[in-house]
């Protein structure tokens, strides 16, 4: 079933794979630190994350194993399936932290919003690869794309999960702009957004409003989110040059960081490894970015280009938002750090995306 000929192996992007594995290893080590207890070094979080990592690597291999043009053919099937899952969440999803985000499948709980990111990128690439050329994008196509982005966004906002909805919107919008959406449209869209913003504001959940208000003015909520941001900044800053050493981050160990193994995992890492470690981590992500750019630029057709561009945008918008959030540069919206944060669905989707990037990369010469 795996038809991998020698030519494919010859064009395999080893550096991309290597840097991904390095990031994974660092992530696992950090999850261990973030979740270890005094009496027990290896927490259930660590073991579950290890298991997810193996599953994710399986999906990565799966992502390389077929000709990626199959995604083009089945784009709408995948998109429809992920929308159905989102609707299922709205109907029978499991509650957690005041939101309905998970589908409980018994042995594992699935977060369909993560799948929606992926399927939205695929369906947009498929539509736009057929309909874009040197001339400006036809407005009918643009409208179809807006709908394709809007549906999952609306469903995810309902959960409510502001962070993921923003990512889907940002990634979808980037692909659309890259594919040739007239810049006039972009500016017009921005203007419209500015106009409907007050209306949208009234439809945000109170806690989302509070987070945004609090971001703009942290003094508004110094006892909760404002406190989280301050503690995160203290954790990062107190790492100084060399960090406090592995497993020695006091902010993290004493549970002063909120959700330290998911949203604030970067603060844990930066506290223990200092500026030196954080720079290395940023360098690794930057290297990954460069490899992605290489893959995009070498992709042999429009679908491949748009697909890899969309996936890269998805990964790096999350990296920038998550770290920016931990540093107090961006609002706390609940976005995971790819390859690092604890959480199965996100990890699997990111690794599957890497698999697809490898896939496009190694099929650049096949016809």
């Amino acid at each position, binding site marked *: 079933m795996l038809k991998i000929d020698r030519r494919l192996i010859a064009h395999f992007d080893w550096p991309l794979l290597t840097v991904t594995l390095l990031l994974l290893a660092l992530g696992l080590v950090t999850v261990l630190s973030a979740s270890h207890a005094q009496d027990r070094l290896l927490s259930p979080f660590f073991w579950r994350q290890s298991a997810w990592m193996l599953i994710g690597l399986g999906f990565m291999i799966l992502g390389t194993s077929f000709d990626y043009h199959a995604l083009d053919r089945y784009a709408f099937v995948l998109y429809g399936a992920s929308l159905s899952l989102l609707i299922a969440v709205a109907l029978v999803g499991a509650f957690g932290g005041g939101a309905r985000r998970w589908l409980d499948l018994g042995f594992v709980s699935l977060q369909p919003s993560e799948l929606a990111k992926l399927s939205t990128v695929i369906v947009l690439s498929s539509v736009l690869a057929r309909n*874009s*050329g*040197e001339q400006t994008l036809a407005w009918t196509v643009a409208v179809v794309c807006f709908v394709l982005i809007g549906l999952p966004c609306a469903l995810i906002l309902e959960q409510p999960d502001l962070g993921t909805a923003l990512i889907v919107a940002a990634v979808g919008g*980037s692909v659309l*702009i*890259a*594919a*040739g959406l007239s810049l006039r449209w972009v500016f017009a869209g921005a203007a419209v957004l500015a106009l409907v913003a007050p209306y949208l504001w009234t439809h945000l959940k109170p806690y989302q409003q509070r987070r945004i208000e609090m971001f703009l003015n942290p*003094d508004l*909520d*110094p*006892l909760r989110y*404002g*406190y989280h941001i*301050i*503690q995160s*900044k*203290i*954790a*990062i*800053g*107190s*790492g*100084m*040059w060399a960090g406090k050493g592995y497993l020695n981050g*006091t*902010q993290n160990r*004493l*549970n*002063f960081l909120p959700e330290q193994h998911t949203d604030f995992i970067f603060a844990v890492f*930066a*506290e223990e490894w*200092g*500026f030196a470690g*954080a*720079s290395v981590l*940023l360098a690794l*992500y*930057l290297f990954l*970015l*460069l490899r992605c*750019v*290489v893959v*995009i*630029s070498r*992709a*042999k*057709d*429009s679908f491949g*280009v*748009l697909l890899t*561009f969309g996936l890269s*945008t998805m990964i*790096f918008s999350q990296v*920038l938002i998550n*770290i*920016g959030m931990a*540093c107090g*540069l961006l609002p706390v919206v609940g976005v995971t750090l790819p390859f690092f944060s604890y959480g199965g669905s996100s990890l699997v989707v990111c690794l599957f995306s890497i698999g697809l990037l490898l896939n496009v990369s190694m099929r*650049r010469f096949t016809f």
Partner: protein
Amino acid sequence: MWTLDQREAPSRLRRRIRAAAYLALLGFVGLLARLWYLQILHGEELRVLSENNRIRLHRVQATRGTIVDRYGRVLVDSRPSFDAVLVPEDAGDLDSTIETLATLLQVPSHELKSLVKNGQRPAFREVVVKRDLRFDEISAIETHQFDLPGVSLQITPRRSYPFGQVFAHVSGYVGEVSARELQSDPVYRMGDMVGKTGLERRWEKYLRGINGGQQVEVDSLGRRLRVLREVEEVPGHTLRLTIDRDLQLAADRALGEREGSVVALDPRNGEVLAMVNHPSFDPNVFARGVRKEEWRALLEDRTNPLMNRAIQGQYPPGSTFKFVVAVAALAEGVINPFTYVHCPGGMNFGNRFFRCWRKGGHGSVNVHEALVHSCDTFFYQVAQRLGVDTIAEYARWFGLGQPTGIELEHERSGVIPDSQWKLKRFGKPWFAGETLSVAIGQGYVTATPLQMANAVAMLATGARFRPHLVKEVESPDGVVVHREEPQQLTQLTVRPSVLKQVRDALRDVVERGTGKNARLPGVEVAGKTGTSQVVRLGKERPSASRLPRHHRDHAWFVAYAPASDPEIAVAAVVEHAEGGGGAVAAPLVRAVLSEYFALRDKREKQLHAENRSAVDRSL
């Protein structure tokens, strides 16, 4: 490597992707700059802040709302209390700090240790070591500050019940939040005081207010250096009750040390004017943290001081129940006002002799005289004609056998038996003889004092309201946010002549019958006595003083006044009394009524004087 393969991808796509890559690169540069700013430029100071968790959150507990009576006089409020708190992480040598603290506060050190070693506590969360310190304890801690690293004083609002036992069952009490309450409501934190019973619990959401907090910077010993940011607490709402403080105090005095309960309400709207029980307890004990042995003593006390007898005490209503039966009999037409029954001191039914309370008998009586002198034989006869199911129907109409719906938890419903009930409860059919006991409020029949007060109020006005204790809720800035409207539950739709006949009889009960002791100068009172047996005794009923205490009868009196235009209804029960309802309970109700009318007149005079002076001024 920045060039795109041009065979398929258009050049604009290539341009825009390159722009996106540069944008991402810019983002990375921005992050690196931010890390430099935090870790290198401000690393030193942030490192200091991270040691010992220098920036902490302190909760500022909101002051609980006050509870006032219908005229705004304070019944329950809060006062500041100095608590000693310890942050074990700051203590340095924890054991020696605990020893010093134990000697200063005269608390066994093992108790402190077990407080501190509570595994549930998050790191750096302070432990309250002792609440409500005395002045000498405060100064001892202040002077020994340097021997007590990690120990500090904290001022928190403490619930205070200035009237002690008198309002205990109405207000309820506050206590430390339980594990279950912590889980059910994220607002709570360990150590918070929450309403546990009574109105404190029922109106918790209004009373508790919103806790504030401070982000404080502390030094390496945990002493606070400065407040960085602060959210002010919002005090709780004020609860204005329907209770009249003076009437409640008068009822409490009237009941005295006897076990029992007194309830007074306004029959026109269901407002509870007084609700008093004895024995009671001091809710201040709970506000300061009840000790294990105190709690056990309260639970094991045979007289059950924690029970709110007014809504939880289920007593056989005895002869007070007769006005219900009289209404039923007249309304159903099984008797008319001129139906006479001869009472020779009891009657034979089946193979049993049912005694009337007066051994010599009442002679020939109609319903009026039977109520006035509380003749049992008359009602035995009536009972046979009505049947138990009809009696039960009317009793339920009067609100008996079901909770009144007052806003207090764990209200009991009492028992109004009928044939269905007995079949379900005991699996046995109803015996006709049992109906006779029911007609005089004995047998299976039980009712709470509040139910009886509400039933007699219904007789007085013809309508039954849901009794309630809260008039309105006021926000801290004086805005009324909630007002309890009178809620009429049902209406007596019997012929007006029926009501008039029974009401006239109850007036004569006080005027010249068994309830003479409730007579009040200047005000016409209507009422009904009751003496309910606790145990069935042999042929001869010895006098109360010769019986063991717990075999003695309960004394009841229910009344309303003024008889022609009722504004107050009262029910009183004295458990295992020295005498019957007329001797013991009627004077008690009289004292409450006389206080009510004295207070009313005083207030009217005051109002009058104020009006006159206002008129004088305006002239």
